[in-house]
């Protein structure tokens, strides 16, 4: 049951119903890593918000591992080795480190041809820009993962608690992190799970 106090949520719900009635385009599954199964299953045309770089890479990794092209826009500090460790095929990765003021055009051009685009917008995104991208996504059957804020996203993945293991007071090294995640959608109850990133 969505909160009736939030008019935006009500609008979203109504939009979803209209789309279902109109028989909108079938939303195909996009390969997602099994570790995210309890939280999220990517579907074409969706916008997913995440709050960390690792999570962005992780969501793109499933598609990349199954041979799709992925792209990263606005990542001026892309950790290539981390991407490789996630299993992202670097030869099928497009990176636009600093699109600057043109981020909207760049993102639109990338979602046209890539399966998963991970975007770090430079600032707050207005509803109009978001709707342009949303329309592209639906037409081109891509997925947009946004690290940051997005006006209307299908699912928002947030880390509630992070625990690193393998590291002590001057001993060991970072080995593994367990993150308690919560996935809040535009409808339905939030889903929680602990994943190892």
């Amino acid at each position: 049951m969505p909160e009736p106090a939030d008019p935006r949520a009500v609008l979203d719900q109504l939009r979803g119903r209209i789309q279902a009635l109109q028989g909108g385009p079938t939303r195909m599954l996009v390969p997602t890593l099994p570790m995210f199964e309890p939280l999220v299953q990517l579907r074409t045309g969706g916008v997913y918000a995440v709050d960390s770089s690792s999570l962005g890479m992780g969501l793109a990794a499933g598609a990349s591992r199954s041979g799709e092209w992925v792209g990263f826009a606005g990542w001026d500090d892309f950790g290539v080795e981390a991407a490789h460790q996630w299993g992202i095929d670097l030869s099928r990765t497009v990176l636009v480190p600093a699109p600057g003021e043109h981020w909207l055009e760049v993102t639109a051009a990338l979602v046209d041809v890539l399966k998963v685009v991970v975007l770090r917008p430079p600032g707050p995104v207005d509803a109009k820009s978001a709707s342009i991208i949303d329309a592209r996504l639906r037409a081109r059957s891509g997925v947009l993962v946004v690290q940051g804020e997005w006006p209307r996203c299908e699912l928002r993945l947030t880390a509630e608690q992070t625990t690193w293991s393998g590291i002590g007071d001057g001993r060991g090294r970072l080995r593994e992190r367990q993150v308690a995640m919560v996935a809040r959608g535009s409808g339905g109850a939030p889903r929680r799970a602990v994943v190892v990133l």
Partner: protein
Amino acid sequence: MRTMVLWCPDWSVTAGLLELADEQGDSPVTVAAPAVVLANNKVVVCNTAARSEGVRRGQRRRDAQARCPEVVLLSANPARDARWFEPVLSAVEEVRPGVAPLRPGMLAVPAPGRYFARAGLSGEEAAAAVLAEHLVGAGVWDCRFGSADDLYTAERAARLATAQACTVVPVGGSALFLRGLPVTVLADDGPEGAELADLLRRLGLVLLGDFAALSGASVSNRFGSYGMDVWRRVHGEEVSRLASRTPPPELACEISFEPPLESAEAVTFSVRTTAERFIAGLADRQLVATGVRVEAEFEDIGHGGGVSARTWLHPRCFTSRDLVDRVHWQLQAGMATSGLRSRKTTGERIDAPVTLVRFLPDTVEPAGDHADGLWGGGADDQVVRGVARVQAVVGYDAVRVPVRQGGRSAADRQTLVPWGERPVGLRPVDRPWPGQIPGPAPSRVFAEGREAEVVDEAGVAVAITARGVVTGAPWRFRVGQRWQPVGSWAGPWPVDESWWLGAGAGGRSARFQVVGVDGRAWLLRWTSPGSWAAEAAYD
């Protein structure tokens, strides 16, 4: 058809002196002066005047100056040599067409078949005399001629001639002529020849004739393909005639604009057919280009014209469309008047109209190696086109392909190659790289270290001693402005590198993994004498 070779000895020196004289405007004084051409502080070429003072090839600059204090020092510059040989070529061409430049300082022409013989002079000697007269008139005093049945013998003959004279090897006498030469003449052929000459000398073979006396099979076994070539020449079997040479296929294409075009877009539009012709020309020979040099010439407006040249590499092979894009990017980078912006300006800015664009194949490979598979393959065409659209918006080098490479720091272990270029000069990943941080890699790697600070419980900045020991346990730290307590930490991983590059380039440093109480982990780096920076984040 007989061949005549014209040789100007010590051409680099002559060219250097001519240029010097041209710059200073006092030609008669300097051209005969002792002079040497230096590369890496060693004498590469010296002229007769310097040689008579005891200067020799291979000497150090200091030794050459000690022997001849007034010697003119010139730097080696192959482009200058070629540039100043150009007038010689055209001077010869005025008298005898069909000139083939062999290298700066040496050219070949087909020897005149019939030429009137004067008293005591053969026809070819008379012809050489006419050429010599013409060249001396053009300012080239030291020119020597040789004529023979084949090119190689003619070149050898020219080296035996005195200034402005011609050595004529009679018809069918090439082998006999070569056999009379000492083996040391092979040293003129380059390092390979010098090596063989040295070997033959140590074997007790003084003349090329002695070498010719060996059996062909043993020469082929013992001296390789080069030795075999020489052997065949001294037997008169190798007849490389000038006229019989097939010219190499002309793969380069160019287009000139009249009137010159001002905007990059107009040029891009106009080069399309030329690019298609260039690719088609390669395709006719079953070739594709993986590296192409694009040259654009600019109109001379006041401050002199210019040439923008750049070699572009392609991860697969160039199509005409790719070439047009490369032209666009190259001009975009150079032109101030371009409508599209670019992030990187390569070379000097050129704001003059373009008069000519030329494509030169740099690397060509057989087309079969690059053909698409029956069911498609290689880069997805759709993606390539989409990325081209992005490049049109933000500039060609704003779209990157991430590539891993070897290194110690997180930033060293990666590089971003512009889309459409081939990565070159990567460090190998599979080396041990001692000092690198093991375990999961940071997902954010900052190009520039972010300002950070780490203090111990007493509030004193943490540092590392020369033995790699931490002066105090990290207690609080900040990356940016916000201080927070240290949750847990690991390290140090000390590294001492690049200290040989001088102050500020490197030195002692140590890396730490620090986890804040908020659960965020950072890769911090302490650098001697005491500054902290955040290199990467495990976000």
